[in-house]
Every structure is written in structure tokens, then in C-alpha cells.
């Protein structure tokens, strides 16, 4: 069974509950997201004009996605000219088949991998292992979660939910000896172990942060140097990329290289940034003899031409929305149930699927606070997309029956102020049974969840709409004309009439 299927067990609420009851997880996630979030804010401020850079990034992404067919074509043509084998895969299954066929042709026994979300999306490791090919994650965080047999719980910090004591335990088991919970010792162990794996591997598997159309090159951002090893030591390299990773030119990369590391970790630049344009040439010192790029659709093209979701393809996978999200902060990544977690995952996972009925309820796991949009380096309106997902599910008739009935009632009450007022009056009467000291503490009916953490307020004895008449009559005699205030309002109205002043 794939990790994604395992993770998707139960409802969002049940998975969230597991996380909420796990203090280790919550502390670990809070600690790291806070560090990343403050690092990002500092880096953005130091760089200056951050919103202008965001807008520039957004424009590049909007333009590229609007002309994706053109740029994909340009990329593929140029990459092929560089000697790369370029493959297109419509589904995860196709991508796996292409990848496995290459591995089988090479009679591969092992593959080393650098960090790649797209290979998590298609569950490549399980597929390789089913053919007896050892798949080894070489990013430290990915190595840890592979040992734990888990899926990444963060786009850039896969093991964010684990603390160093838990990590020391996992690595000790791997090493067959007790390792101290010291970061340098643990990293040293993995480094030594992976050296051998790099040297033995037949295949190097990478993801792709950006693909440059004008030269057919791929660009990898990393901090550990493992992606360099993966892309230079093994004889065959297979790069998996989502079809939307494209940007037109190296000049555009400057903007992305400004936005991505700062948004992800607060770094000005990652430790390594590699541009790879093809297999080893005659006078190159290293590099793969054969290079493949597998370009994956898997639901991405469904977003093209969709006014509500096309901007999803602008995502550069920095994870800033996860670090800013107050929901992610409390429930971590696994509760989202898919490969991608946090606000971007809550939208991307359902959007990549065709069938609305199968959409999970993750879109409801958001207070719509908009912190994700504010953090996003390319300004994707994720909070609006969450509402669109909810609406589409309701419109397709797959909403919750109880909620649907409730909302019909809402419309009935709210479409008439008379009914609304009578309902409030009825509420005042009804609440007499449950009000204690002006509040309602009882954990009953719809208040059960609310009152498990709060005491609900009661409806006022006299509603504002019932007091308004008297208040107006009373104030009518006291109102003192104020020339300055009057003038400012007139000015504003005149401006509005002229179309000049708008507060938006």
C-alpha cells in the first residue's frame, strides 16, 4: 500500500486529532515553522521592496503558465538537442512505467535520490522497490522519514514533525549502535553511510526546482550537496518534474532565486544551486552518461483555463504558506492526508483530482485567515481557492446533508429581516433554559464543539435593532453639526462622483 493511501486513512478530523494529541509533534512543528517564518520575514525585509519582487515573480509565473504549451515545447526541443531523453507522462502510472523501463534497461540494482516532491506524488520508491531496486533518499530529512516508513510532512522539511531524540532513535536502529542525539554526530553518520550508496548506485533520481526553456536546462536548489552527488556520480540520471516547473529564461531565474530560498528558509541563497543542461560531454570531469527527463501532468493540465485554479500552477514549492499557517502549526502535515500539505496541499490535492465527489474535506480545515496568501512569494490566493473548492463540492451535490439543510435555513432566515428578528426573539426565549451568568456553558447540540474550549455568549436582552428607535430619538436632539466633518464627507462624495477617490 502506498504511503499516500496509508496517510489518507480516516477523516481530516480524525487525522488532526491524532496530531493535536501528540505534544512532541506539535512542539517540533511549532519550533521549526517559527524559525522559518521569522527567517523569511527578516530576509524579505533585508532584501527590500519585497512586494514588488513578489509581483514580478507572480507575473513571470502567470505569463509562463498562460503559454505553457509554447515553453514546454521550447524546453523539450532544447533539452533533446543537449542529448537529453525527454518523456511526457499524462499520469503518475505512466511516469512510473517510463522510469521503471529505464531502470530495467540498465539492470539497475540501486537508485540514489535527491529530494523531490513529485516522486513522492507518484510513489516512485515503492515502485522501484517492487522491482527489487533499492531506492535511497539522500536528503537528510527524507532519509529519516524513509527509515520511519512515513511520508514527508512538509514540502521542504520532510521530517519537521520529529525531534532530534526521535531521529537519534531511528538512526541508531539503522546504524546498529546507539548514537547520541547530537545533530553533528547524526548527520556525520548519515553522510558516511550515504557515501557508499552514492558510489554503488546505478541511477540518480532528481526532482526539478525550475526548468529553463531557453536552454533546456534544469535547476536544483539544495543545502546538503547530495543533489550534486546524485546528478554526477551514477551513470544514469532520471529527473522527474511537474509540467509547470518551467520558466522562460535564466533572467527569470534571478527573480525565482531571489524569492525561493528567502521564502523557504530565510536564506539569501541555498548552499548549492546547480544548473544541469544535459549528460556528460567529452571534456566534462563528471556527470551521467545518460540523462532522462520525465515531465508529469497528473492532473495539472486540469487547472489550465480554469479561472479559479490556474494560479495553482504558479506555485514554486517554497513551503512559506505552511510555515505561516496557524492550522498547519497545530496539526502538522500528515493530517492533510496527501503528498502536499498545508494550505497549498489543501487546495492542490483535491484540484489535481478530476472527481469532485472524491474530494476530501481538507478544504474545511482552514479558518480562511489569509496568512498563506500573504506569505506566498507569487501571491497565490489560496484562501479564495479554498472557498471555491467548498462551493464546487456543494454545487456538485456532495456537500454535507446536515450542513446543507442548515444553510437552507440560514437563507430562509436571512432573506427577511422580519423572520430574522423573530428567530432572534425565539432564541432569547429558548436560551433561558441554558444561560448561566449571561453565558451558555452547556456542551449541547451545535455548541458542543464550541463549548469544549469556550463559553458561548447569550443573545442580548434587548437587541440593538430593538433599541435603535429610542437611541435615534434621544440623539436627535444632541447632534451638533460639525462643519469640518461635513466638508470631508462632501469631498469624499464628490471624489467618488468624479471617479477619482476610491478607498480600494
Amino acid at each position, binding site marked *: 500500500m502506498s504511503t499516500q493511501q496509508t496517510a489518507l486513512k480516516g477523516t481530516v478530523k480524525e487525522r488532526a486529532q491524532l496530531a493535536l494529541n501528540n505534544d512532541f509533534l506539535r512542539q517540533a512543528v511549532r519550533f521549526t515553522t517559527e524559525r522559518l517564518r521569522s527567517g523569511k520575514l527578516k530576509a524579505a525585509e533585508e532584501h527590500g521592496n519585497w512586494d514588488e519582487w513578489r509581483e514580478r515573480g507572480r507575473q513571470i509565473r502567470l505569463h509562463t503558465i498562460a503559454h505553457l504549451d509554447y515553453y514546454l515545447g521550447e524546453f523539450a526541443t532544447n533539452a533533446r538537442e543537449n542529448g537529453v531523453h525527454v518523456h511526457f507522462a499524462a499520469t503518475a502510472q505512466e511516469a512510473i512505467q517510463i522510469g521503471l523501463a529505464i531502470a530495467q534497461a540498465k539492470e539497475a540494482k540501486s537508485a540514489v535520490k535527491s529530494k523531490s516532491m513529485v516522486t513522492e506524488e507518484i510513489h516512485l520508491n515503492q515502485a522501484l522497490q517492487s522491482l527489487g531496486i533499492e531506492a535511497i533518499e539522500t536528503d537528510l530529512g527524507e532519509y529519516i522519514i524513509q527509515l520511519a516508513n512515513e511520508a514527508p510532512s512538509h514540502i521542504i522539511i520532510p521530517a519537521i514533525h520529529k525531534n532530534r531524540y526521535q531521529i537519534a532513535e531511528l538512526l541508531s536502529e539503522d546504524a546498529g549502535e546507539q548514537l547520541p542525539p547530537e545533530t553533528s554526530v547524526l548527520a556525520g553518520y548519515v553522510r558516511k553511510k550515504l557515501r557508499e550508496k552514492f558510489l554503488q548506485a546505478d541511477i540518480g533520481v532528481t526532482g526539478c526546482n525550475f526548468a529553463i526553456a531557453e536552454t533546456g536546462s534544469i535547476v536544483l536548489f539544495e543545502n546538503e550537496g547530495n543533489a550534486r552527488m546524485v546528478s554526477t556520480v551514477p551513470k544514469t540520471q532520471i529527473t522527474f518534474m511537474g509540467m509547470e516547473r518551467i520558466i522562460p529564461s535564466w533572467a527569470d531565474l534571478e527573480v525565482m532565486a531571489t524569492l525561493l530560498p528567502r521564502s523557504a528558509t530565510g536564506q539569501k541563497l541555498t548552499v548549492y544551486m546547480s544548473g544541469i543542461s544535459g549528460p556528460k560531454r567529452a571534456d566534462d570531469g563528471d556527470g551521467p552518461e545518460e540523462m532522462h527527463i520525465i515531465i508529469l501532468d497528473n492532473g495539472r493540465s486540469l487547472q489550465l483555463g480554469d479561472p479559479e485554479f490556474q494560479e495553482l500552477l504558479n506555485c514554486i514549492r517554497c513551503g512559506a504558506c505552511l510555515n505561516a499557517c496557524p492550522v498547519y502549526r497545530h496539526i502538522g502535515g500528515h493530517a492533510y492526508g496527501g503528498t502536499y500539505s498545508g494550505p497549498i496541499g489543501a487546495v492542490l490535492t483535491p484540484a489535481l483530482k478530476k472527481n469532485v465527489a472524491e474530494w476530501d474535506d481538507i478544504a474545511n480545515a482552514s479558518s480562511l485567515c489569509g496568512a498563506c496568501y500573504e506569505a506566498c512569494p507569487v501571491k497565490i490566493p489560496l484562501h479564495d481557492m479554498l472557498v471555491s473548492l467548498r462551493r464546487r463540492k456543494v454545487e456538485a451535490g456532495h456537500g454535507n446533508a446536515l450542513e446543507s439543510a442548515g*444553510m437552507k435555513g440560514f437563507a430562509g432566515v436571512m*432573506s427577511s429581516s422580519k423572520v430574522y428578528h423573530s428567530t432572534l426573539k425565539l432564541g432569547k426565549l429558548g436560551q433561558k433554559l441554558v444561560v448561566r451568568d449571561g453565558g451558555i456553558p452547556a456542551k449541547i447540540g451545535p455548541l458542543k464543539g464550541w463549548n469544549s474550549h469556550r463559553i458561548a455568549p447569550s443573545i442580548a436582552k434587548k437587541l440593538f435593532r430593538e433599541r435603535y428607535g429610542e437611541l435615534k430619538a434621544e440623539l436627535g436632539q444632541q447632534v451638533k453639526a460639525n462643519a469640518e466633518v461635513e466638508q*470631508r464627507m462632501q469631498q469624499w462624495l464628490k471624489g467618488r462622483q468624479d471617479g477619482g477617490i476610491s478607498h480600494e
Partner: protein
Amino acid sequence: MRLFANYGIVLEFPNVQTCCGQPAYNSGYWEEAKAAAKTIISAFADSDFVITPSGSCAHMVHHYVEMFKDEPQWQEQARKLQGKMFEFSQFLVGVLGIKDLGAHFPHKVTYHPSCHGSRLLGVKSEPMELLRNVRGLEFVPLPFAEDCCGFGGTFAIKMADISGAMVSEKVDHLIETEAEVLVGLDMGCLMNIAGNLRYRNQPVRVMHLVELLYEGVSNSNEHAANGA
């Protein structure tokens, strides 16, 4: 109303209004949201300015234009309403240019910027300016102030435990400040925070900025009356 009366403004309260429709809109029930929205659009068709003591409700009106995309007449009305809709402090500072009401409020106060008002509507400096000009007020910043309090409307009911974790953390930070009063601009968030404070038997007073300013102005008036 009493505050505005001091500046020659009589607030009208059109009785036909109900709710802006946000609970239905956010849950995906746009048809139901439209039913509520129509009462708001009709209620304020003849008003020059519309003021609401909630940044979230004010911002909801910005969704009307899209909601009524298939009903051009309503859409036109919605566009007009959006242009004249203001959150309370936005109107006071932005339109009227009033930053100092002569209020006196000798308490330690902290402020929670509600997400929709500050992040989506862009009301950030206005409440701070108004608070800065209150005599005797000691302002203490709220740690992680911009983090959502966990209200989120129906979210607090549907995802009660996640919401509960969020409001508990918000209140932890609030208690850290040792403030006597928490002030805000949105009743939903304030009800949420006040509910958790009460659940935990914490004595912090939760006030809308309008309430704080009104009490502050009354304090000043009393002060003047006693002095005279």
C-alpha cells in the same frame, strides 16, 4: 451612535438588513449567501456611506461582485456598495480624518488585528492611530498578534478542536502580556477569545474598539464635569 453624534452624524439603521452572508459564502453555499446579501444591498441602496464594526463583514461585500456575476442588476448595486462600505476605524480615520476623540482610558491594553480586517481589507494603521491618541492608555504588543485566533466562522464548529487549539494559544499569548483589556475590530474574533478566557476563568476584559473609545470619551466627560 453616540460617538458619531458628537461629530454631527446621525447613523441610520435600515431595519431590512440581516447578515452579510459570509457563513454561507465561506461554506460554499453561494445561493444561500446571495439571499442574505440582497438584504444588505437593498438596505443601503440610498446611503452615502456604510459603516460596519467588523472588518470581516466589510470585506465580505467585496465578494458580492463575483457572486452576482450572472445577475447584472444586483452586480451593479454590489459594486456601488463596495465603494461606500467602510470598517468603523477605516471610516473614522480615513474619511473623517478623526484620529483623536479626546478619550481617557487609564488601562493596560493589547490589540488583536483580525485577519480579514487587517490582511484582506488592509486596515492596519487606523486602529493603532486611534489607540495612540487615547490618554492614559498603556499599550502592550501582543506576541504573534497577526496569527489567526481560530474563529473562522463555521470553522470553529466544524473543526472545533483545531479551532480550540488556536484560540487557546492566542489566549496564552494574551495572558503573557498581562494586559487588562484586549481590544479588536471584529466581534467574531472577540467572541471567540472572550469565550476561551471565560472558559479558563481569566479576568481579561474583551472590548471592541468602539466600546473602548466610547468609554474613554465618557471618562473624559466625567472628568471634565467633576473638574468644573
